[in-house]
């Protein structure tokens, strides 16, 4: 198991990122906390030797997304809340960006991911394809469709700056 010092460093450095990815998929606090702890426990138990900070970050992103997917697929999750209910729970916390969150969270999961990884984390399509282990053309397709849906929802298109 990784040392306490290392865990403190990783949690402080990546907690916001992990929480954002959790929220992007799970959209409520309770599930977010579950996955949050699971991800960092996996890190603590993992014996992966990271080549760089970027490698470590990409590993955490992938593990977080997979953990969210596992929770979504689980029995309890599938028999609980609808998207509207979740948004009602989530949006009171983010009233300032209510429209943006609504629009992004209504995207299909794959498009939500690429929007977040590209427009927030700054990854290129080839880098995203490595993180998500998908063909780069698939990533471009998801990005195009996500932009079209956001344009429809919000009346504007995210610029590339």
């Amino acid at each position, binding site marked *: 198991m990784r040392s306490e010092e290392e865990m403190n460093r990783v949690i402080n450095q990546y*907690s916001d990122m992990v929480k954002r990815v959790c929220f992007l998929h799970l959209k409520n606090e309770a599930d977010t906390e579950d996955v949050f702890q699971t991800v960092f426990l996996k890190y603590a138990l993992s014996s992966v030797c990271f080549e760089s900070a970027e490698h470590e970050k990409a590993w955490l992103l992938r593990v977080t997304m997979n953990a969210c997917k596992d929770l979504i697929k689980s029995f309890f999750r599938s028999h609980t809340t609808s998207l509207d209910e979740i948004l009602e729970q989530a949006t009171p916390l983010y009233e300032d960006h209510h429209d943006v969150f609504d629009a992004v969270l209504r995207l299909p999961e794959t498009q939500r991911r690429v929007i977040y990884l590209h427009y927030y984390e700054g990854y290129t399509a080839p880098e995203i394809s490595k993180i998500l282990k998908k063909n780069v053309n698939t990533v471009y397709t998801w990005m195009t469709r996500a932009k079209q849906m956001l344009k429809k929802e919000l009346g504007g298109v*995210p610029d*590339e700056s």
Partner: protein
Amino acid sequence: MNREIKEAFDAIHADEHLKQNTIHFINQKRKHPVSTWKPVLTAAACILFIIGFGSFHVYFTPTSVISMDINPSFELEINRFGKVINTEGYNEDGSNLLQSLDLNYDNYKDAIHTVLTSDTMEEYLENDAFLSIAVVEIDEAQGEEILDYISTCTENQENISCCKLQKEEVTKAHSLGLSYGKYNTYLELQEAGIEITAEQVRQMSMRELKDLLQQECPDNLDSAKGNRKQNQNGHHQENSKNTPSS
């Protein structure tokens, strides 16, 4: 739009409470590590226990019983593998004989050979005692095989008889404290109208019982020798191959 997306996600932070809970959670796991092998080992232990218990049960379940009466009365329980798994004496002589021979876990063929060639048994047979051997079949195929073996072993012995019978008859015999061989003779005596108790039968030798039966029922064809088989009505009848003509 790009700025709005960034600002929206910038607003999401992991609060200190969540971080501290996570650190505490991981430290708890550090103190009490999760063993991935524990459930596997537990499941393996349960499976081994069930297999072991099952094997034990199979090994120690009798599939045939060999009942021998001369004066010593005793029974040998045989498992599906042909091994003697239990011996029971039905009188003192029977218990003493079993104790002296130690037949447990022998193959039934070896056990029968040991009994028939023991000093005690040879002495009885030389003194014209009568040996009755009954094979109680729980497993039909095995019962047949045992009876064939015993018949072959004893075919030249005039004062030995053997027969095959069903398990239900044994229950009645045991309820009276008799091995089946003596119970069978007890029934014959009762059918012949001879008043005798189970206790008296227990005390008498097979020779004495056979002689009594012969005395009271001269028409009884099986006075001293021959193989008998049980018919569907539960009565014994002669196998004409081995009995003298009347």
